């Protein structure tokens, strides 16, 4: 259906060019947390990725405007017909910050070492699932092969998780890489890391192999990047307002007014991947009835939730994927609020309104539990609104708060009615990871047409063909109400006016090579 329906988000263009770019200066950026590790292959938390991403280059890069994979360390590549072999032709003349050159052998060593990394490297490990090995074809040609078709690997090769590190770094223990840092070929090098305090980076002199997306050729503009860890959001906001900082991450709705008043630029971009929504457990008798799932989805007023709970500019869900995900398909007509239809679907399913307004069938009340973890400040108010909205059509919702650590356990045991969550990933294969019955199958879906669509897209090497299959999968998921998509998660930064060209990458994280102060 729709091929690449991607738009660069309105306010996400990152700085208007007043004056001309100049080199030099220090950017001080505050994030809320420290993952305790400065190896980009081993961290998954946004706050730490902002800094560690600048240390490494990836084989490829992904255009945030089109979702297209473009050259970076690899000048070109080929993908085998069955999407099991990826051959990268490396750019010559690239060196790591320890002075050693980039070769096909180093790429092999990087990927071979990933399975040995610890629990922190779950992202890198999942990208290399089914990894068969890497062959050094020649000094500058590496062929990565998989046991099964793995179309998502090309996008994965553009991520920080598979950023390439020097041979000496890869031979270190995961712990050493975490605490002492890594040698990458990136535009910045690590100058100091104080846990829970700061991560300081310095410009790499002689850098000449930037991504084809970088505006500036050669070295970065900024001399230094200092990432301060400031856990209190009020302190982050106040410090940016009072000029103690140049930029901050994780801006929430509550901070917006203060920042706007202080002449700070707010930059936002929707995270690609699966939007925030309710995933139904289909092993529960209630949710085996498609009409009930559809009714719930139709009774949710997405615009109200996006408008009252989330930072301004947040979009209500228009598909199971957010609009910044490659191969996103607009299904907004199917996700519009329709209480009347929700009511008649529930009537058809045999759930009749009772005297207290809650529907019942054979003496049982129409009620279910939404399980959620307090990872974002927006979760509770969103769910309380959903609770009210569903009550209006006669559905009784209980909210069950759990800790993040419980999430895995609950998913594995399928011990929930409905789960509230989202997943950030700039590749539509996230649909297979989430909904294929051949994998974890968290939602206990029965095998269906959807499995075939998901398996075919991961084996499709023609982008147009893959986009078509991904579109069909989204349609299937929304039509059968496998999940009730609700709202897109948006990453919002506060940036001082003097900072220019601080831009989002395709995964809604930041790119600082082109950033300048003036």
């Amino acid at each position, binding site marked *: 259906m729709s091929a690449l329906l991607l738009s660069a988000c309105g306010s996400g263009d990152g700085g208007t060019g007043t004056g001309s770019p100049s080199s030099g200066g220090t950017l001080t950026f505050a994030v809320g947390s420290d993952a305790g590790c400065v190896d980009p292959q081993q961290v998954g938390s946004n706050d730490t990725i902002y800094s560690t991403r600048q240390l490494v280059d990836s084989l490829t890069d992904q255009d945030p405007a089109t979702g297209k994979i473009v050259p970076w360390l690899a000048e070109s590549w080929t993908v085998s017909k069955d999407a099991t072999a990826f051959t990268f032709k490396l750019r010559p003349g690239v060196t790591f910050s320890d002075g050693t050159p980039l070769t096909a052998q180093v790429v092999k060593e990087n990927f071979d070492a990933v399975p040995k990394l610890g*629990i922190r490297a779950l992202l890198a490990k999942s990208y290399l699932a089914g990894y068969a090995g890497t062959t050094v074809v020649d000094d500058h040609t590496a062929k990565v092969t998989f046991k099964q078709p793995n179309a998502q690997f090309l996008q994965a090769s553009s991520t920080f998780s598979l950023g390439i590190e020097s041979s000496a770094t890869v031979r270190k223990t995961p712990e050493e890489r975490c605490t002492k840092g890594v040698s990458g070929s990136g535009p910045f090098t690590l100058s100091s890391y104080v*846990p829970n*305090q700061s991560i300081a980076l310095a410009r790499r002199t002689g850098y000449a192999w930037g991504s084809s997306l970088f505006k500036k050729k050669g070295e970065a503009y900024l001399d230094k990047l200092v990432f301060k860890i400031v856990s209190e959001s009020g302190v982050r906001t*106040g410090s940016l307002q009072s000029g103690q900082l140049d930029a901050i991450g994780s801006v929430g709705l509550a901070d917006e007014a203060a920042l706007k008043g202080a002449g700070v630029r707010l930059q936002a971009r929707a995270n690609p991947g699966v939007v925030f929504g309710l995933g139904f457990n289909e092993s529960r008798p209630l949710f085996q009835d498609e009409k009930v799932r559809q009714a719930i989805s139709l009774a949710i007023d997405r615009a109200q939730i996006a408008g009252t709970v989330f930072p301004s500019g947040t979009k209500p869900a228009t598909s199971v994927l957010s609009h910044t995900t490659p191969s996103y398909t607009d299904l907004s007509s199917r996700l519009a609020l329709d209480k009347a239809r929700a009511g008649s679907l529930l009537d058809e399913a045999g759930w009749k309104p009772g005297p207290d307004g809650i529907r019942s069938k054979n003496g049982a009340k129409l009620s279910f539990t939404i399980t959620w973890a307090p990872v974002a400040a927006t979760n509770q108010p969103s769910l309380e609104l959903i609770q009210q909205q569903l009550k209006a059509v006669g559905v009784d919702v209980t909210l069950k708060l759990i800790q993040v650590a419980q999430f895995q356990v609950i998913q594995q045991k399928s011990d929930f009615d409905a789960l509230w969550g989202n997943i950030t990933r700039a590749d539509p294969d996230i649909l297979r990871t989430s909904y294929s019955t051949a994998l974890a199958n968290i939602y206990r879906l029965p095998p269906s047409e959807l499995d075939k669509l998901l398996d075919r897209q991961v084996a499709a090497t023609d982008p147009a063909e893959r986009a078509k299959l991904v579109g069909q999968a989204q349609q299937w998921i929304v039509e059968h109400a496998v999940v009730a998509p609700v709202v897109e998660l948006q990453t919002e930064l506060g940036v001082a006016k003097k900072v220019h060209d601080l831009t989002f990458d395709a995964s809604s994280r930041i790119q600082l090579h082109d950033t300048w102060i003036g």
Partner: protein
Amino acid sequence: MRRYVIRRVAQAAGVLWTAYTVAFLVLDYLPGDPVSAMAGQGLDQTSSDPAQIAQLKHEYGFDKPVLVQYAEYLGRAVRGDFGDSVATGRPVTSTLADALPATLQLTTAGLFLAILVGGGLAVLATYTSMRWLRQLLLSLPPLGVSVPTFWVGLMLVELFSFRAHLFPAFGNDGLRGLVLPAIALAIPSGALISQVLAKSLLNTLNEPYVQTARAKGAGRARVHLRHALRNASLPTLTIIGVLAGQLMANSVVIETVFSRNGLGRVTAGAVGSQDIPVVQGVVVFGSFVFVLVNLVIDLVYPLIDPRIVVAGRPA
């Protein structure tokens, strides 16, 4: 005296073991484990391949029976080895050792300010003959004890950093960065010192020996500072043990508000990610400090006031 010391040391060891065991049981009771906690970060289900997670749990030994895990941890802990942090892979001992100086600096500065201001307040309140001033000064400590440390910290930042631009709002850098957090930390402790000292000063001032000193013609200030304060300080000494605990607990909050690295910050992070080895290390270290402070006080007390041991049980 010797039997007394041995008994106290044995009690101290018992407290440490109990704290360790309780911390272990609490962490074990919590659903999930460090591997699940890390995998659940940001609810990123991309990373939730159950086979992979099971394998990792096995590698870290979280699939062993609880008693076996407990025995293993305890066995190593007795030898001073608290293992490695699950979140960073660094040894727990060096993680704590790195964070300790910053916390020590903060708590020392906080305690110093608390004694200075809290003590000064109590002396002034009991010394003044102006009734309204005394009432005003005596009403401050209950206020200081009851305002949340968190709120105090944020107010200080708002006023002295964001508005007046006098001190940095966050970080460990230098003496200027220490001022606001130390003040915030000193408020509840200073209030406690002030309350206890003021009360015992007022009691002491009514004692017969003070009347005698006055009758002998000693000046008012001399009686107040030389005679009464010295005796009134003893009850204040006993609450230093309580203060040590209070300072450590409040430093978790203060270090978070002011984004200072330190034990409090390490603790908050470790609890969040269920980093069991680090939490265990912190608990044992915290109880060790608490036990040590109380032990020292108990041993010093009879030296200052010999009647206490003569009377049998030390306070």
